[in-house]
């Protein structure tokens, strides 16, 4: 135990050194500002921010890159809370629960209080999530040693199924998107057989579909196409609220510390389950708060400050939680962490068990980035809440061409090949069609990222077992994972059955 703690402190110390460097710290602040900006603009979100930031990190030291991206990841939901409170328009989906009480507070002229409470709860929730991550890292190391190829194969499938189920009514389409992601992942040189597959003689495809241009197209450019097709501005009505009494909001969080703690706990736990994500965490935290608070002074939905604290602490705490499966197993818990995984691979950091052993300092750089970014983001929000809200009034026909150009330049900058620009555009069209017909892009992305490790694990498992499928059902951990896959796939029909049962009960009564 002493040895483990010694190693932990050593890695923490090495990581801390990066934060004493002004240049590195500037990247963290830049990432935080970018995350805040993209979080505050509805429809853009953290995934778009990360996709656009990846090309900027090419020439960077890997720690600086992690700080830039980590800062952005940690700040997105804090930025999203501003537009949720001021405009009743959540910047990103997890901020939707904040609108319930945040916007009524703003209507009552208490926007400053709501923003103060939201930002403080976000920062504290984020810190709790990160500290949980620090505590879990040594345990995660022990757990990953229990996993071998069959388990990794099944874990990848479980991650995908869990994420597909989390898309709600679009499970079937999410699974199809995952299949499509796998197919794209098969393109190029196959490490197992040494054969180039599905490249049709196109030399640019021999190395496979490059993740960064694909992600830039799938998230950043496709979103711009959607914005341009729909036209108008992102937000629909003006924010004419006074931003004052921010300190009252900060005090409210400390006065309601149990609300913040419960929200953070829910966020961290939910974040660690692949695919469940911040939206569920925020809503679960909000509904738990409503149930806990049997006789509130101010009814929920009419401007109760606890209705802002609960979801905001949960959706920032989930960031730390979602990094547990991402770092320990290489299974991203969300679209954002999938893009983040892509960036790590780009910098030679193979996510998964080895990362915890070989690059512990990088893991702790990320942990510290998230910690500092939570605080920096809060300070920036408290200082710049109103100008940020005005960004949502930028016309689609200004935003779309400029972001598209920057995204295309970013796609090209990866390797200086024009083919990457074409790949980005092709994936932009695919991404747009997926938005249009409601095929979740998250499972596509995660399958694209996981295709390689999944196929490799499958072959290793078959190799170990002399091509016997029994290996997937004769080991304890594998059996647990198979059960989880089956359960996760049955959840939607169980939900339908529950709904029908309660409807028939209501009908009978």
């Amino acid at each position, binding site marked *: 135990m002493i040895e483990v703690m010694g190693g932990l402190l050593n890695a923490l110390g090495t990581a801390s050194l990066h934060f004493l460097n002004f240049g590195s710290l500037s990247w963290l602040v830049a990432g935080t500002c970018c995350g805040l900006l993209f979080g505050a603009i509805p429809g853009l979100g953290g995934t778009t921010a990360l996709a656009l930031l990846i090309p900027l990190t090419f020439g960077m030291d890997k720690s600086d890159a992690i700080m830039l991206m980590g800062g952005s990841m940690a700040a997105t939901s804090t930025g999203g809370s501003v537009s949720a409170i001021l405009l009743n328009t959540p910047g990103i989906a997890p901020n939707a629960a904040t609108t319930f009480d945040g916007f009524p507070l703003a209507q009552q002229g208490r926007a400053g209080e709501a923003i103060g409470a939201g930002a403080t709860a976000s920062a504290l929730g984020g810190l709790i999530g990160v500290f949980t991550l620090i505590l879990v890292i040594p345990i995660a190391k022990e757990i990953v040693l229990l996993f071998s190829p069959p388990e990794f194969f099944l874990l990848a499938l479980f991650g995908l199924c869990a994420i597909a189920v989390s898309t709600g009514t679009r499970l*079937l389409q999410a699974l199809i998107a995952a299949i*499509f992601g796998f197919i794209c992942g098969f393109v190029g040189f196959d490490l197992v057989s040494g054969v180039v597959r599905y490249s049709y003689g196109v030399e640019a495809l021999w190395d496979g579909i490059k993740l960064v241009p694909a992600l830039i197209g799938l998230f950043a450019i496709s979103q711009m196409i959607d914005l341009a097709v729909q036209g108008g501005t992102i937000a629909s009505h003006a924010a004419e609220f006074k931003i004052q009494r921010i300190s009252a909001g900060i005090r409210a969080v400390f006065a309601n510390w149990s609300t913040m703690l419960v929200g953070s706990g829910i966020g961290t736990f939910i974040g660690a389950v692949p695919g469940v994500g911040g939206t569920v965490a925020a809503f679960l935290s909000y509904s738990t708060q409503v149930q806990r608070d049997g006789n509130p002074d101010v009814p929920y939905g009419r401007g109760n400050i606890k209705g802002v604290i609960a979801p905001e602490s949960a959706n920032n705490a989930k960031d730390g939680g979602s990094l547990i499966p991402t770092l320990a197993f290489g299974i991203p818990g969300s679209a954002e962490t999938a893009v983040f995984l892509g960036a790590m691979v780009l910098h030679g950091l193979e996510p998964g068990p080895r990362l915890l052993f070989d690059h512990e300092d990088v893991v702790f750089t990320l942990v510290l980035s998230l910690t500092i970014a939570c605080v920096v983001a809060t300070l920036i929000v408290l200082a710049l809440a109103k100008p940020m809200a005005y960004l949502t009034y930028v016309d689609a026909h200004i935003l779309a061409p*400029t972001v598209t150009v920057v995204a295309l330049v970013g796609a090209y900058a990866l390797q200086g090949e024009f083919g990457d620009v074409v790949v980005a555009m092709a994936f932009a069209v695919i991404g747009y069609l997926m938005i249009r017909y409601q095929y979740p892009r998250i499972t596509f992305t995660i399958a694209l990222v996981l295709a390689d490790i999944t196929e490799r694990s499958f072959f290793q498992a078959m190799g170990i077992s002399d091509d016997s499928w029994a290996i997937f059902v004769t080991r304890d951990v594998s059996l647990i994972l198979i059960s989880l896959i089956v359960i996760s796939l049955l959840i939607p029909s169980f939900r339908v059955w529950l709904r029908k049962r309660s409807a028939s009960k209501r009908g009978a009564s």
Partner: protein
Amino acid sequence: MSGGSSTRSLAGGIGVVVFLAAYLVMLGMGLHRTILLAPLALGLAALVCALKPMVEVEKQSALYFAIGILAFMIFFLHETYEFKGKERNFPLIIGYAGIVLSLLDIASVTETVAGRFVTRFFGATLDPSEIKPREVRRELLVFGVMVLGVIGIWLFGFLIASPIFVFLWMLLGGGKSVKLSLYVGLGTFVFVYLLFEQILSYELYRGEVTTWIMDMIWE
């Protein structure tokens, strides 16, 4: 479903069976794989005819998209059989899973018993009211502008094409004033140039025409 519609569905259904049988016969005869794609394409066209009357008008574009996905999955599987042994094992599993899921997806769009069952089992509802209205003309226009932008970048490079792309989009596509379009176009140029060329020291793509002209000048 009206009488005419059920006749069309029946004819389409027969077409699907006939073309599938033709595919299997041609496969047995050992014909070239590219030729085999013909009965598959015709079979998919027959499938559209068969299913169209069973789908609400608002969901028809979703049906075409789902059939497009099925076509892609079939093509993928067809291509996968080009490989041997280890290199095709996992793709085959994925390909067959893709075809099963695509068929279920197609069923979920239809107003049939199978469709209702799939919808109930997977909770795969596609509420037409949830699909935001999008003008196809506008979509084609945006795609067209994007493609022209990429061609422009290929010909003239990022530094020349980017500000022109932004300027023209804002002016013609967004109806913005010349002044605003010019400012934003120039702002984009300055941002891209300063960030990528100066700060990050990337040499951005110069474009085929620009490179040719520059070479001519240097010579």
